[in-house]
């Protein structure tokens, strides 16, 4: 059963991260390709705190959330000045910079070798060692984040964010603060990213830069788009589906030594098919 549990735990973590990406990219329309960097900051902060026994798990997660909040606000600020394609590459630059920091700031991140031996999460004095306990923790936090996301979407703030995506000038002309709205969304997306990263660190017990590179950001975007941007359901379906796909594909018998490459190719082909047949995503709003 550990296999299924570890799959579900990982998927639940990616749902939290997907919500973060969906909020920024789908709802507010800030096309960030550096969300994996935020996720990484969350994982490293928790990893560092626990490995060096700075604080316990719960405060470490809170610290991760706070750190990601601040970092995400800072890296989203260029969006206030640079827009569209220009922001995408700016964000891309930020992602590469983050990867360089994760890889080379050996004192804090362990460098390219990563941080091994992150102790498991502990709640109320109990260490969550078993796979089902990890799953319960991840699902619990996922549910909490989903609830927050839902409340947000239906609140006036959610409406304001969607309006910002549609037309910033009109929002400003209605007497609403565009800057504050965006900063708030970036902060919230940062908190989600921090919680997800923190869970990832304790679940894998190992943090290294390979999970937080540009491919990681692209994976998050893909999850959101395949699931369906701008909706809660989409952010849940996307990660569960895209993490299951490679697993299902390993069940497909391919009788050559190039099997793994063939499966990755098949994964690419499925992505194309999803986009051609359902461009709005499986649970997305009809565009």
């Amino acid at each position: 059963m550990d296999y299924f549990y570890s799959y579900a735990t990982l998927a639940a973590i990616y749902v939290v991260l997907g919500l973060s990406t969906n909020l920024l990219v789908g709802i507010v329309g800030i096309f960030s390709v550096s969300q994996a960097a935020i996720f990484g900051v969350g994982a490293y902060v928790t990893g560092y705190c626990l490995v060096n026994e700075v604080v316990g798990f719960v405060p470490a997660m809170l610290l991760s959330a706070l750190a990601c909040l601040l970092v995400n606000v800072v890296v989203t600020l260029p969006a206030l000045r640079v827009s569209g394609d220009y922001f995408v590459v700016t964000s891309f630059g930020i992602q590469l910079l983050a990867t360089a920091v994760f890889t080379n700031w050996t004192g804090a991140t362990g460098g390219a070798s990563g941080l091994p031996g992150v102790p498991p999460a502990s709640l109320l004095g109990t260490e969550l060692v078993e796979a089902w306990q990890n799953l319960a923790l991840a699902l619990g936090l996922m549910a909490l984040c989903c609830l927050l996301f839902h409340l947000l979407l239906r609140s006036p703030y959610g409406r304001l964010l969607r309006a910002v995506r549609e037309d910033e000038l009109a929002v400003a002309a209605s007497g609403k603060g565009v800057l504050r709205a965006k900063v708030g969304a970036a902060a919230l997306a940062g908190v989600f990213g921090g919680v997800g990263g923190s869970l990832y660190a304790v679940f894998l017990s190992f943090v290294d830069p390979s999970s937080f590179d540009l491919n990681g950001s692209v994976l998050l975007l893909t999850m959101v788009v395949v699931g369906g941007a701008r909706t809660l359901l989409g952010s849940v379906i996307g990660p569960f589906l895209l993490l299951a796909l490679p697993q299902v594909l390993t069940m497909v018998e391919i009788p050559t030594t190039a099997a793994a490459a063939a499966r990755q190719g098949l994964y690419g082909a499925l992505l194309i098919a999803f986009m051609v047949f359902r461009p709005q995503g499986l649970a997305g709003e009809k565009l």
Partner: protein
Amino acid sequence: MLLLQLLVNGLVTGCALAVVSFSFSLVYSTTRVFHVVHAGLYTLAGYGAWSLERAGIPAWWGLVVLPLVCAGLGALVQLWLYAPLEQRRATHLVMLIASLGLLAVVQNAIAAVYTPNILQFTDPWRARTVALGGVVLTAVQVATVVLSLVVFGLTLLLTRRTLLGKRIRAVASNPFLAEITRLRPGRTYVAVMALASALVAVPGVLVGMDLGLQPYGGTTVLLTGTVAVIAGGIGSLGGAFLLSVIITVLQNLSLLVMPGQWSVGITFLVFVLFMLLRPRGLFARAG
């Protein structure tokens, strides 16, 4: 001395990158698709030339054959993937994900056929060296500079002086208007994709000959190229060319003052700051 050597080396690498970027720019400014499959065609061209060498045909024939092959493939990508998606009114993000899917297919197909090992060309003329004032260059490096400048010149002539060039500019500036004036943007898109794919085959073959081939190697090159495209100002071929050279020269020269593991990160930090100062790039087309 070291400065001169690094400078020249950066210029050579920059010329190859420049062809990747301005050909990408051609596609991006016309069709607005973030065409990452471009990286796949770049890699494919190198492998094609390697196969020719294996078959006993001198590898430089690849410079004649592969642009034609890639032109055909590029046109097919437009006809079979981007055009249908556009008809379904897919967003840019959806197009990007579909393009990423196709890139995965191409790269993994290459890995399945050629193995993921690094392949080297064997033709001895490549490694023949020329010494120019203390800087030693190989024959391929010299060819890279010359051919990159030649194809750049030809492309400029083509876009400025021919009917196709006029169409490209008309469609790029306003596809809707082009549609109602019966310029048939669809056909222009196919032509642009064919042209750009033919162009990208040139550095694909040359860099493969110089540094060796690997299936997943094109992605980094393309991403650096897109940064040049956008920092140079979307739609400006000269800007893309110049910025490509500037980026690689900066990366090379940065070694004078800092260890290499930071050079990528610092280069992109400079780039992010630059974007904040000049949010529309260096040579953005007016309007």
